[in-house]
């Protein structure tokens, strides 16, 4: 007991638990440091680049100066050695008649690229393992309590293989989005944005010599447009470039397009889910606390928003907001996230309102009220902790739905503005070639969307069963569908 323990006579187990000089903790901290150090420049580049983009979105002269300054830092950080960079394991080289030049250790571009991808995923899983080990260490050795209710949730999730499958799929997808620039066999700039500004060397088999050409020119000759011209998955084009998923009708690399596209899907998805979770929780707490008329008016409001089909509302709002300054941020992705949050909170609100109403009936709420606590404190401290778990469930499912909707909108040519890659646009571009040799352009993005959405749904299922094993498995169905896209 803490009352009996004095500084002069410390409790033996307590001091052991709080000792941060423990060898196991040191090993864990060291591993973390190593993991961080090998990727530190990339992290700095990402954060600074993101800030620069965010600041540049504000149309003032100060913002431009600040953005320039940040871009300077970004340039400096790029030159530092990083484990998972294109420079350390390059895959863009050429065949000089005898061997590969410019690739990793003289290996073929395909093998070099595969090594880099393997390295990225090994790193990601090492990070995941490090995180899990840290949690385990904390739970077994440092936490004062032997057991908390959350332990049961975690343990139940561990025994849920379907949920774990979802977690792995989601983790693979997130890794893909985070390391997008490293994973692609080529860069976005070279691939589609500015391909005529880059030169490349290749082995001309007819002339039996190494020649130089523009990347854009090479792309133009590696198009996938039906049976006559096709560069399929897992194959090389005539310029010795490897295309894991083949090329697109423009001749750019599909894999690069997809990994970069995963980033925008994930960012819009996470942003919109976070915003709608915020909105849904606050409104659910308000309606559960005040009940009566407040609740009724919120029911009517959410019914009215739900009466407008989400996809149609998305189409309408993205047309109306397309030409405003807010519509230009992040290729229209930001306004898309806002629209998603504005239309999608209703589904989440409906599912959180039930649990919130149940909590509001409990005696501790009455007790807190008679104790004189303010409504906001009661909502935050005594109600919120009981509904956050449900947010995770619907958040996971809504994210899957958001990915489908974003893809559906860009299939229609709305939402994310070209040339920013988006999976739905790849499906649209390849639509005419599905029955031909260039089937990969539409098929692969669609299969990937299916897998990722299944993963998010499975994760949601797993979390639900972990949080509330008695709940019926029928909740949250509409959330994972993205308004019918």
């Amino acid at each position: 007991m803490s009352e009996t323990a004095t500084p002069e006579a410390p409790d033996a187990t307590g001091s052991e638990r709080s000792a941060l000089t423990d060898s196991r903790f040191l090993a864990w901290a060291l591993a973390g440091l190593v993991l961080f150090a090998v990727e530190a420049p990339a992290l700095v580049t990402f954060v600074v680049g993101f800030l620069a983009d965010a600041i540049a979105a504000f149309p003032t002269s100060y913002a431009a100066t600040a953005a320039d300054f940040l871009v300077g830092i970004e340039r400096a950080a790029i030159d530092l050695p990083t484990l998972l960079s294109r420079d350390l394991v390059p895959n863009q080289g050429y065949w000089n008649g005898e061997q590969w030049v410019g690739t990793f250790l003289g290996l073929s571009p395909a093998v070099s690229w595969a090594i880099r991808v393997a390295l990225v995923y090994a790193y990601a899983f090492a990070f995941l393992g490090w995180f899990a080990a840290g949690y385990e260490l904390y739970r077994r050795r440092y936490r004062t309590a032997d057991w908390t209710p959350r332990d049961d949730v975690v343990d139940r999730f561990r025994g849920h293989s379907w949920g774990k499958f979802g977690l792995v799929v989601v983790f693979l997808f997130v890794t893909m989005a985070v390391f997008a620039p490293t994973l692609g066999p080529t860069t976005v700039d070279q691939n589609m944005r500015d391909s005529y500004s880059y030169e490349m060397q290749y082995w001309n088999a007819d002339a039996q010599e190494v020649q130089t050409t523009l990347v854009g020119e090479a792309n133009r000759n590696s198009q996938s447009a039906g049976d006559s011209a096709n560069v399929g998955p897992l194959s090389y084009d005539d310029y010795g470039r490897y295309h894991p998923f083949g090329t697109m009708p423009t001749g750019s690399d599909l894999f690069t397009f997809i990994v970069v596209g995963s980033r925008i899907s994930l960012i819009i998805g996470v942003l919109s889910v976070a915003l709608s979770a915020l909105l849904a929780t606050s409104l659910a707490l308000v309606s559960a606390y005040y009940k009566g008329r407040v609740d009724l008016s919120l029911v009517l409001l959410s019914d009215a928003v739900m009466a407008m089909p989400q996809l149609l509302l998305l189409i309408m709002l993205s047309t109306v907001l397309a030409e405003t300054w807010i519509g230009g941020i992040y290729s229209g992705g930001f306004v898309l996230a806002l629209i998603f949050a504005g239309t999608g909170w209703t589904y989440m609100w409906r599912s959180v309102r039930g649990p919130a109403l149940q909590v509001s009936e409990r005696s501790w709420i009455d007790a807190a009220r008679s104790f004189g606590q303010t409504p906001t404190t009661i909502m935050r401290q005594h109600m919120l902790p009981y509904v956050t778990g449900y947010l995770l469930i619907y958040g996971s499912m809504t994210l899957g739905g958001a990915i489908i909707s974003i893809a559906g909108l860009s299939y229609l040519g709305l939402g994310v503005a070209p040339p920013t890659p988006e999976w739905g646009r790849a499906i649209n571009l390849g639509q005419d070639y599905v029955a031909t040799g260039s089937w990969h352009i539409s098929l692969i993005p669609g299969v990937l969307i299916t897998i990722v959405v299944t993963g998010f749904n499975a994760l949601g299922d797993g979390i639900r069963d972990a949080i509330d094993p008695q709940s019926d498995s029928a909740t949250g169905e509409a959330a994972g569908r993205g308004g019918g896209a």
Partner: protein
Amino acid sequence: MSRLKYLAKRVLMMIPVVWLGASMTWFIIFMGPIDPAARLLSEGQTRNPAAYERAQEQLGLNQPPLQHYMDWMWNLITFDLGQTWLLYQGSSVNALILDFLPRTLFLGFWSVLVAVLVGVPLGFYAGMRSNTVMDYVASMGGIVWRAMPNFWLAIMLLVLLQNSEAYFFGFNWQTFGVNLDALTGAPDMSRLASVDGFLAATKKVLPAALVLGSASMGNEMRIGRTAVLEVKNQEYVDLARAKGVSDRAIVWKHIFRNALIPLVPVITSEAFLLIGGSVLVETVFGINGIGWLFYRAAIQGDLPLVGSLMYIFILMIVGVNLLQDVLYTFIDPRVGLEGN
């Protein structure tokens, strides 16, 4: 009596929902960052002040906003939806909706039917034989089926059907049963009364209906399975069995009827998805229904038409909600007896 009261209450609740939805639509379109009048005019006309003023006047935008709002709402209530500006220029919106809506309704009808006829039996089957291989296959299939993007599924299905002869060992979908001139395009709604015409129109929308119903099919399967599993272990089923009720009667009278209750809200809530998804599916299959009309109006900038169509969509969804409540009172006798 209490059931009637319950239904009356639900009808009453719909009025503010429609009003709120229509008001939000008005606000987005007429108070948003885009000037609907300028959007309707071509480049040259925008610079012509006379043409611009004429457009503003016809839209009523030269009035104070409140007056415009009242007029617009009144026009919606009386279904005086005016005429189109860009799409099918100058035709009456009412006539356009009456022309396009039946195709979407026909598509929606079949997609609900396909989903119910495939999803529910599969789910009940999986539930009755839970934890068998067939159950796992069916459940897994339902989960993956749900996660597929509709528009992508539509493209893939279309390709499969177009080349059905090569993929399905000589089975040709296009000439199977009723001969179709093209796989995509609108169903011929004028000959629905004749058997031949009905079959042709049905065959035309069937692939689209399958795609549109895909999400609902997966959901219905899953919920059907859970419902059967739950009902199967209820005490009244055991009691019926102990009384010597035949297996057939137990399944049909005691299990299925009760398992249907959680399915009703699923089937009707799918209406949201059907109406929303109709835009993409109609675009891929080239069916010129109301969802397609909405999409064309939105991208061409005919915002007044977008607003009117949104009102129709709101009415449709609210109508489906009402239908759900009516069905509920039929299936579940407890509705309305316990307050809510």
